[in-house]
């Protein structure tokens, strides 16, 4: 499937077509995960009719991959009406849910509607750890029961394991649980700042030696030598690359109709409640600015030895204050992988030294 997917992405990129959209149907949730980046109050979500209209518009625009997420999607009473409409438009649908509310009836509907994958966040195989993160007693038990119902109906489930300090020692257990359930397993050590820029949850994430150990576990990364290899020298091809699909072939729509390049890149680019999707996609000044950026345009990262291999997220950089700047979390990942400091890290270290000198100068006046 790989080469055809690449071909499809390239075709979309060349033609300026959106191929992938994440639509969050609600920010409401029955869980209160400690690391969540969302505000769970309802500030006026799109109605069923508005969401159906958006789905019609994005299908017309060529979108093929649709992720329905939240919040918890099943908090919406009309979720299956939305899903049915999406499938009638022949989207390839992925649902992100905590599976807490998936019982026999919901599992049957998801199977019958031909949803291709359901992604469920599981933080630990131990209820005391998982439930402490979700702040919902009994959530591990219910989520696992929901996964079993889906798997027994042949629905493909992916268990997503966000890794943080609180569950650092449990990823092997979650992986084993995924195997036992017949689900796929993915791990992500990224904690995203809140949508309003609040970074107070970032310290929940792992760093330093802990991150190094994760990156040296062959069960998680495959070939460690390859994964942790020093970055090769960047050529012109690397410098002309676009950072990721955000704003190029993919975008994100919030429950309030706001359109952003990505869920992790909350740059307001338009609102589908007041503008047609295709007008925003084609004419948004913000999206066109995002599209114009190449690696060579990044003042710090273009000088960094990691430029060709870094997982730099432009959204995380934007939330740090500059979409052309470095994403410190990704700098830390590159350092944890290779032991080689990024240009950003070296610059910060040098600034710290200079700041000390400035203070000494001030005291002597």
């Amino acid at each position, binding site marked *: *499937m790989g080469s*055809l*997917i690449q*071909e*499809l992405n390239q*075709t*979309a990129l060349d*033609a300026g*077509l959106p*191929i992938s959209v994440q639509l969050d149907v609600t920010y409401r949730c029955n869980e209160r995960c400690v690391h969540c980046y969302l505000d769970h109050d309802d500030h006026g979500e799109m109605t069923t009719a508005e969401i159906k209209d958006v789905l019609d518009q994005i*299908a017309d625009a*060529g*979108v*093929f991959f649709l992720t329905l997420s939240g919040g918890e999607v099943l908090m919406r009473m009309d979720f299956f009406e939305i899903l049915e409409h999406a499938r009638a438009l*022949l*989207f*390839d*649908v992925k649902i992100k849910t905590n599976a807490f509310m998936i019982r026999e009836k919901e599992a049957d509907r998801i199977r*019958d509607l*031909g*949803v*291709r*994958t359901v992604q469920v966040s599981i933080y630990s195989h131990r209820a005391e750890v998982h439930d402490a993160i979700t702040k919902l007693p009994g959530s591990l038990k219910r989520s696992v029961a929901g996964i079993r119902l889906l798997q027994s109906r*042949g629905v*493909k489930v992916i268990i997503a394991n966000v890794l943080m300090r609180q569950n650092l020692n449990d990823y092997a257990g979650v992986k084993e649980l995924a195997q036992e359930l017949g689900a796929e397993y993915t791990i992500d050590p990224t904690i995203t700042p809140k949508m309003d820029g609040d970074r107070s949850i970032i310290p929940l994430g792992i760093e330093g030696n802990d991150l190094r150990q994760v990156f040296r576990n062959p069960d998680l990364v495959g070939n460690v030598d390859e994964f942790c290899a020093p970055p090769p020298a960047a050529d012109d091809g690397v410098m002309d690359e676009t950072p990721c699909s955000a704003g190029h072939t993919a975008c994100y729509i919030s429950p309030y109709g706001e359109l952003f390049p990505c869920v992790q890149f909350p740059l307001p680019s338009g609102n589908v409640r007041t503008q047609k999707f295709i007008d925003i996609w084609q004419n948004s000044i913000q999206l066109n600015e995002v599209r114009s950026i190449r690696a060579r345009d990044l003042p710090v990262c273009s000088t960094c030895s990691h430029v060709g291999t870094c997982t730099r997220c432009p959204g995380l950089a934007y939330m740090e204050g500059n979409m052309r700047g470095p994403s410190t979390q990704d700098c830390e990942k590159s350092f944890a992988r290779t032991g080689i400091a990024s240009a950003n890290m070296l610059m910060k270290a040098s600034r710290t030294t200079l700041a000390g000198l400035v203070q000494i100068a001030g005291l002597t006046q």
Partner: protein
Amino acid sequence: MNAIYIAHGTKLAGRKLKNQMIIMTARDSVLSSLNEVGTAIWDAADGVTPLEEIVEQKVCAEYSVDRNEALRDAEEFVQDLASDGILIVSDKPIGLEERS
């Protein structure tokens, strides 16, 4: 020869990009791309138009091909797609209830 009727499978996703149909099956996550002729047959797969008629109207009328050869190729094509769950193939018209 008995008529063949074709309809779209239900557990799949599809989108037309630059006149080519892209299809993903939910069962095995296999992504397929139909060429222009395959896309024309896909577009006409309404469950009630016989394949022979589809080939005459959508293939022979548009492309310079031998009718019998085109029909043979089309039959093979729809059977291949049926084995992947992309099309439903029947010797009777296919109603909505048979597609669910």
